[in-house]
C-alpha cells in the first residue's frame, strides 16, 4: 500500500464538478482507494463514489491523504494526486 498527502487548492472545495472528475478518474483503476481528510482516520471516504467524496465536505486548504493498494496503485495515486494538486483545472 502506498499513500500521499496533498492540499486542496480550489476555491469551492470538493463540490459536484471536482467530485465528479475525481470519481471518474478513480474508477479507471482496479486498486483499493481511500481518502482521508486532515488525518481524521475515523472517516474514510471512497474516491470511486461521487457521493462519498462530496460527503467529505472538504474545503480549500484541507489536507487530503490518498491511499492506494493493488496492482495499479502507483498510477492511480499519481493521477488522483495530480488532479487535486492542480485544482481540477479550475
Amino acid at each position: 500500500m502506498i499513500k500521499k498527502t496533498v492540499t486542496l487548492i480550489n476555491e469551492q472545495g470538493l463540490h459536484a464538478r471536482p467530485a465528479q472528475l475525481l470519481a471518474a478518474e478513480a474508477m479507471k483503476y482496479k486498486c483499493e482507494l481511500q481518502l482521508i481528510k486532515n488525518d481524521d482516520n475515523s472517516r474514510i471516504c471512497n474516491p470511486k463514489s461521487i457521493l462519498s467524496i462530496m460527503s467529505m465536505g472538504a474545503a480549500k486548504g484541507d489536507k487530503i491523504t490518498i491511499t492506494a493498494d493493488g496492482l495499479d496503485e502507483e498510477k492511480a495515486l499519481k493521477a488522483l494526486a495530480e488532479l487535486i494538486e492542480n485544482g481540477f483545472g479550475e
Partner: protein
Amino acid sequence: MTTLTGIPVSSGIAIGKALILKESKQEISKKTIENIDIEKMRFEKARKEGIRQIDAIYKKTLKSLGEEKAAVFHAHKMMIEDMELVKSVENYIEENNCNVEYALHEVTKNLILLFKQMDNEYMRERAADLQDIEGRLQKILSGNVEEDLSHIEEPVILIAEDLTPSQTAQMDTTKILGFITELGGKTSHAGIFAKTLGIPAIVGVNNNLLEKLSNNQKVAFDGSTGEIYIDPTKEQLQILGHKLDEHKEYIKKINQVKGKSAKTIDGFTIELAGNIGNPKEAKYVLDNEGCGIGLFRTEFLYMGKEGLPSEEEQFKAYKSVATLMKEKPVIIRTLDIGGDKQLDYLEMPKEMNPFLGFRAIRLCLKKEDIFKTQLRAILRASVYGNLKVMFPMICSMEELNKAKELLEKAKLELEKENIPFNSNIEIGMMIETPATAVLADLFIKEVDFFSIGTNDLVQYTLAVDRINEHVSNLYSPYNPAVLRLIKNTIEAAKNNNKWVGICGEAASDPLLIPVWLYFGVNELSMSPNLLMEAKWIIRSISNKQLDENIRNILLLNSGSEIKEALIKLNKEIL
C-alpha cells in the same frame, strides 16, 4: 396588498397570476418484504429508468443552456450509479427486510442531513441534487410521473417550496413569467438556470409564502431587488409595468442577434471580443458569443497578495484561459501597475503625478525580473491556445525595443531549458499615449498589432485626470483631438495590413460604434455583458449610408457638438 422580500437571483420584472406548485408528497412507509432479490431488481430497474430520463434532460439542457449548465445532470447520473449509494440501499434492504422505497429514503435522508450540516453554503445546497434524484427514483418506483411544467397552458408566476434543477431546466419560457421559491440561496441551481433562461426569479422567501398565496392571485416582483408584491396597488403596477416594458424591449433586441455574426446591413464585419480581469471571466466572453479576448488584464495576479506571483501561478492562469478559448485569440496585456493601482509589497515611492509617473511598462523595464517572470509564463502558456502578448503605456521606440528584447531573452532561456513555447507569438502594443498615436505609422512597423486604450488616451490627450471630480467633466472621448488620434492609428495599421482593435470603454459606447466602423477598425473589445448590445447596434447599421454622415460629424470642431450630432444619428439609425 402585502410586500415580501427574498433573495434576488435573476433580474427582470414579472407580473401575473400565481400558480402554486405543491409537490404531492409521497408517503413512504416501511413494508416488510419476503423476497430481497425482487426489491434489489426493482431498484436496478428504477435506476436504469432514472438514467434514461436524466440522459434525455442532459441532452435537452445541453442544447438550450450549454455544456456547463448541463454538467449538473452528468453529476446526477453519476450519483444514481454511485456504488456507495447502491451498496448502502442494498444493505439496508437486506438488514431490514424492507421495501426499496423505504431503504432509499432512509439512505438519502442521512446523506442529505450530512450535506445540510456542512459549513459551505454551496455544499449545503447540493442537498437539492440528492433530493432531486431521490424524488425521481421514488416517482419511478411508484409509477407516478414527474410534475411536468411543460403542460402549463397560460403564462403564470410559479410559486414553489423549491424547484429541482431538472424542473427549472425544462421550463417553457413562454409560459413561465418568473418564479419565487421559499427555499434556496444565491448559488442554487434554480437561480443559475433562471438567469441563463432569462426568467426573473427570487428565492429564499422565508415567510410561509405558499400559505400566504392562493392560485390565480395577482403577484408582481422585481428579480433585481428581491421585492415581491402580492395584490399590488395600481401605482406599484405602473412603476413595475414601465420597468417591464423597458426590460422586454431590451431582451427582444438582444435575442434577435444571438447566434448571428457582427455584420452591418451592407456586409462589413467586425470582431467583437471581451475584456477580462481574471480567468473565470473568460467563460462569460464565450457565453456572450465573443470571438476572442481583446484584453486580458493581468493585475489580478499581483494585487491583494503578500508578494509577487510565481511563474508557475501565472502560467496556470494563462494556460487555463488559452485552453478554454482554444483557437480564439487571447491578448494578454503585461503588468499595468502604478498610477491608481499600487502594490504594497513593491514599496513604490509616493508620487505627485502617479499617472505621469512610474507605472506599467516603465516599471517593468526597470524591474526586469518581475517582467521576465511574466513573459516566461505567457510564452509557456502560448502552446495551449492562441495567445498574443501586448505591452501597455509605451511612449517611445526605446521602450518598445527594450520590451521586445526582454521577450527575446525569455524565449532564449526557455529554449535552453527545453521548455516548449510558440516562437512566433504575436507582439502588440497599446496605443494609449498621444506620442504613439501620432507616430503610429512608425510603431506599426515594429509590432504585429495595435490595441487602442481609449481610457488613458483621452486622459493623456486632454490632460484630464478623470478621477479628479473638479475636472472630470472635461473628460470626453468625443473630443475631435482624440478622434483624430484614433483615426490616425487605425489608418497607419490598415496601410500596413496590420490588425487594430479598440479595448477602452469607448469601444462599447453606442454613440461611437458607428464612428469605429467608419474608421475601419478590426475589433472592438469590451466587458462581456455589453457584447450583445454592441452586436445589435452593428447589425442595425449600414456602413455606406453612414459614411457621409460621419464624415460631416468629424468636421465639427468641438466634443460637445460631435456628441450631440452622434446622439441625433443614433436616434435615426436605431
